[in-house]
């Protein structure tokens, strides 16, 4: 087949795929709603949620994880485009990470030495480490699906960012239930859960996002 013939056939195909942003919203919003509903129905929101949302040390974990999730989502949309490899900058994610570590250091210093271990271990490590990855499944899948509809030229990086976005948002939702208010707890264990999900998502992305 001559190239001109191919071009003629290509030009006749007027079916246009949906824009990436629309695809993402169509998948991600229901996924997040399901996650909220799951936390609400299976675990219940924390009893003092109204107070917690206005208490800085408690609310800041929702802010941090949500900001991380939204920043990563925006980067994922950039990386879904072929030139995204050159235009997407990952440093905003490092800023969120640095802020979390700063918070951890601050909490370490301000928590009395004898209380540190209890604050770090808390009472709900297992629930936290199981629930956040479970809640992340649908949001991360939404992002990976959108990236697959796109044309990323950096599959592993796109998978990495998708993992951070999905698990960051899921952690923010989990925080509606979790009553562990010490940064020693939540930076450590939320962080570990997010890193675990992100690692898996990176490995999946490297495989499935080629085209």
């Amino acid at each position, binding site marked *: *087949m001559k*190239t001109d013939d*191919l071009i003629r056939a290509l030009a*006749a195909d*007027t*079916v*246009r795929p949906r824009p990436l942003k629309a695809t993402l919203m169509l998948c991600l919003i229901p996924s997040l709603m399901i996650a909220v509903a799951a936390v609400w129905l299976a675990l219940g929101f924390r009893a003092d949620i109204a107070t917690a949302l206005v208490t800085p040390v408690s609310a800041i974990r929702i802010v941090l994880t949500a900001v991380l999730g939204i920043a990563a989502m925006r980067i994922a949309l950039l990386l879904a485009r072929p*030139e995204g490899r050159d235009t997407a900058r990952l440093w905003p994610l490092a800023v969120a990470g640095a802020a979390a570590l700063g918070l951890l250091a601050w909490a370490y210093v301000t928590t009395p030495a004898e209380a540190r271990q209890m604050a770090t271990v808390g009472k709900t490590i297992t629930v936290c480490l199981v629930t956040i990855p479970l809640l992340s499944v649908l949001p991360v899948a939404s992002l990976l699906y959108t990236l697959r509809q796109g044309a990323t*030229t950096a599959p592993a990086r796109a998978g990495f960012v998708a993992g951070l976005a999905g698990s960051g948002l899921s952690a923010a939702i989990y925080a509606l239930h979790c009553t562990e208010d010490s940064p020693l707890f939540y930076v450590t264990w939320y962080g570990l859960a997010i890193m675990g999900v992100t690692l898996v998502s990176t490995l999946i992305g490297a495989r499935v996002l080629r085209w």
Partner: protein
Amino acid sequence: MGTATLPDAQLDVAATTYLSSHFPKARPQDLPGLLVAAVAVYKPVRETAPFVTHITTSYPWGHCRLDAEQVCNNDADRTNWNAVMAEQTEAWGQLLIAANAGDARAYARFLQTVSPVLRGVVRAKGAGLGEAACEDVLQEVLLAIHLKRHTWQPDAPVRPWLYAITRYKVVDAFRARGRKVDLPIEDFAEVLAAEAGPDPTDAADMAKMIGMLDGRSADIVRKIGLEGASVAETGQALTMSDGAVRVALHRAFKTLAILRERHVK
């Protein structure tokens, strides 16, 4: 030295010398491909005085690095060069905007306009493969551009988008054909913004893939592509509605992309 009077044979010698000194890593067998690319760029651009006058007298093949920093030694040159590039990019953008709004003719024009440029990129990288195989890779690139055209946003420049797809597909295609591509495409990207001579392919790969589609899809692609039938005519011939032809055609291209990937690996 007048630009218009420089004979082609002399250009070739100058180009080869230039290329081997500026691309020390290029193997001898890569040079013909680089040369084709350079000539493709050079001929149309030399009409664009005064930049070209300067480039031909001082840098016979300078623009084939296309890196404005290295090509041009003063601001005026750089401005001229950027103007040439910007004009072309803008034209591409307008065609693509019209295409995305549903103008099939603008879309065909867009693909026809970028094909020679992309052909230059492919040949520059795959000189050892032969022209037929390069044309085949070009078709793969065009198919990818087509299937991923929704990833371009009207506010984004066309060129980086186009080259990113091309780079990805070219590296992939040559890797799959057992040839490692060792020259970064950036070296050529900007330079190659010019028409290459038309070159019909005799590579059978795309035709072979079409043969692997189901009968009806293959008929649709052949009728529209080879026979130049319209969607309506195709629908009549196959007793299908226009909508059904369009959907089948779109599916056929998606399937072709998958088939090619499998086939080449």
